[in-house]
């Protein structure tokens, strides 16, 4: 239909991570770039996740309209377990690349989420925005992927803390529990979509909810990271 919508969607999709990355990372790049490793890690992780899901997920019996999503506890559980493979992927990416800690974290998370948004939404939006019909879905997808970026940054922070930090047991347990929150929230969103669709609340409100949750995750993870940094600097002093 018109390119303006397309450009708008793509801009929101791609430029935001770029902005965030450019702002947060000040140091120079080195050879083993976190971005490259991030993208590769994402691809491999998603591939293995899909294979596992295809093997283990039971067939869903119902065929309903798209927005009338159904919630099935068994498949949700399996999805949660399989998506925890993300931890491994992120960890490997962080370990493989080199550079200052901040660069690594931000690089990997930026690469991961942009790869995710590109592969999930880019082509769909391209074709969809050029359709004669105007649909808000594409814009919502783009903003949703921005929120995913936030979530991914929080996630990478936690992984870093888990890896580098030397905590006592109760703390570590806490962090692990917090980590599991990352995987449960997408399923919770699906459930909430089901509930909300019964009240006919779609789209934008869901997006706001997602943002709230992602922001919460982000803040807490940042706090974890800061406390970790403090511990480290204290140790160095000592």
């Amino acid at each position, binding site marked *: *239909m*018109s*390119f*303006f*919508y*397309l*450009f*708008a*969607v793509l*801009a*929101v999709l791609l*430029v*935001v991570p770029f*902005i*965030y990355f450019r*702002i*947060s990372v000040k140091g120079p*790049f080195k050879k083993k*770039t976190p*971005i490259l490793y991030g993208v590769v890690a994402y691809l491999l992780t998603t591939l293995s996740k899909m294979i596992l899901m295809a093997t283990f997920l039971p067939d869903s019996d119902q065929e309903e309209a798209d927005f009338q999503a159904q919630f099935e506890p068994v498949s949700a559980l399996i999805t949660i377990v399989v998506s925890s493979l993300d931890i491994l992927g992120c960890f490997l990416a962080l370990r493989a690349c080199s550079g200052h800690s901040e660069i690594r974290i931000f690089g990997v998370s930026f690469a991961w989420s942009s790869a995710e948004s590109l592969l999930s939404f880019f082509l769909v939006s*391209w*074709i969809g925005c*050029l*359709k*004669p*019909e*105007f649909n808000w879905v594409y*814009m919502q997808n783009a903003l949703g992927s921005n929120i995913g970026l936030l979530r991914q940054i929080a996630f990478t922070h936690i992984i870093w803390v888990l890896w580098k930090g030397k905590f006592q047991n109760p703390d570590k347990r806490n962090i692990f529990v917090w980590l599991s929150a990352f995987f449960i929230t997408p399923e919770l969103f699906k459930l909430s979509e089901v509930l909300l669709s019964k009240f006919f609340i779609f789209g934008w409100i869901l997006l706001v909810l997602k943002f709230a949750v992602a922001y919460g995750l982000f803040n807490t993870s940042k706090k974890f990271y800061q406390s970790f940094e403090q511990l480290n600097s204290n140790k160095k002093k000592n």
Partner: protein
Amino acid sequence: MKYFPRRSQTILCFFVLTFVFNSITVKSLETLPVFRLLHSEQVSSSTGKTFIRGTTSASVPSSQTKAYFECAEYLKKTPKTLTNLDQDTDIENETEEEIPHNEQEEFVKCFKGAVAVFPLFSLLEFDISALSEGGSCKGILIVLPRDLLTTKAKEFVTFQNEEGRESKEEIIKKLGEIESILVEKEFRVPIYFVHEDEVSHLFSFDNLNPNKKGSYNLKIVGKPGNKKKIKQVSSLEAWLPTDLDEEGKLKPTIVLTANYDTFSVSPALSSGLESGNNAVGVLVELSRLFTKLYNNPQTKGQYNLLFVLNGGSKQNYLGTKKWISSVDRKVLESVELVLCLDSLSIYDDDLENELTDDLFLHYSTGGKIEIGKTVPTEFQSISKLFGINTQIVTKKIMKNNPLISFEHEIFYRKKLKAITVSNFKSYNQTIRKGSLLDLQSGSNPTARPMKTVTTLIAEFLSKMIYKQQQQQQQITIFENNFEPNNLVIESINKMLLKYNRFSPFLEKDDQLLLNLENTFKSFGLDTKIESKKISLKKETFYYTGTQGKLTIFQVKSLLFEFFVFIMSLVYLAVLYYFLNGKEKTIQEIKQLIHNRKKNN
């Protein structure tokens, strides 16, 4: 930055790629089948009247319907209250029932550049021929209701007589007139029909405002029409013989004919049954009953029976004419009576305030043979037994007039005794021509039960066939085991409803005829399908391309999308501002300005 190309290059690549991908045509959410107005031309060299005309435009438009929905307010109000709307224009005759002329013009102007979407009943209030000039609108889309005669439909029509509400019959009659206008007047805009069910969540046949707000883009994809002549017309014969007589010649024959084709203003929608061709089911059932009788040598009649189904009835009974010219001479010589079955189940709406259940028996006079009064009066007396009043109508044939009024005239001109049993009193009633609107029959609650008519005709025939019982008291044969089965008739009717039966577009081996042939064969009759080629002096051209797909998009204006684009840029800027921090952003902006000044 090493890993990202320069900004300008990326932007350029982006633009190029988007233009490349622009040619992707994508389907939208809703694609619906849509039917096109009959499109044909009659080319005649003599001074005869051109009978069929249609739209001459074969282009396929797509345009917005915004204007229509704004003007929908006009149609909601009755003609009398329309005068309150436009206070500027002078309206002279306030007591006129029709929409005053200058307001009609205003209304027509609404549609300029847009597609006019009409629910069917609104055509009663708005004169559609006002839109016949090219350029008045881009196209007309008529939404047909699923069931014509529901109470909802009656409520919608707010047309007020002096007497009060419109009766159902009036509505049918008026719609029939509208259909004739559609056929006869030349429209320079394409006209399309669509069923209500499929667009029901957008606009229904009585709800004029769309459920979703916004403007719509209607796109119709279909093949442009090609000229097509009627190439052939097929007829199906089923022969039920009796024994040959002592000399080895054929015994006399009774021929029963019916027509299986229809006409409507949109050829692809010609599958209705009400106006003139619901006799097929009756004919088939009669053939079954008589086959049953003839199978038993004790009840075998003294006449051969020939059941014929002809096409081309709406093209001045072309099929019957061709059939006569090609039927076996021996059979033709043995014919004693031809009974033509015309429409048999609806009421006569010519008498406006009366519903008559009468049947009419037509026969012609003024030819070389005389039918005589015995046969018709016998039919009359038998029909009285069944509680149906039959009126006898005679008409003198006019040899110079090529227009055939009823089927029996064709046989009469060939010196055969023929009568027609019909529901219609006169031959030129509008609804007899066939209508778009009789899309489902059999659900008409006022229809006469077909069983009665079938029994009536069967008894009448048996009187002729089994001559011995004629003088005795009235013996009815067709009851209990031999009772006509309504299910058979209904199933045949249901089958007919599924097929488009507009003659010019029927192929040689049409599935419908094959099905009917199989039905006859299953009763045990000898059947034959014949397709005769047609070459007329006056050629009538029909145009193919009678169906297409309608796609309805809900569009937003370009300005809106530009606005969205700007908003997304603002979003990015705001995000940048927040993440960077106030002072830093201001610093960066200042730097940019400084750099520019330096470069300049």
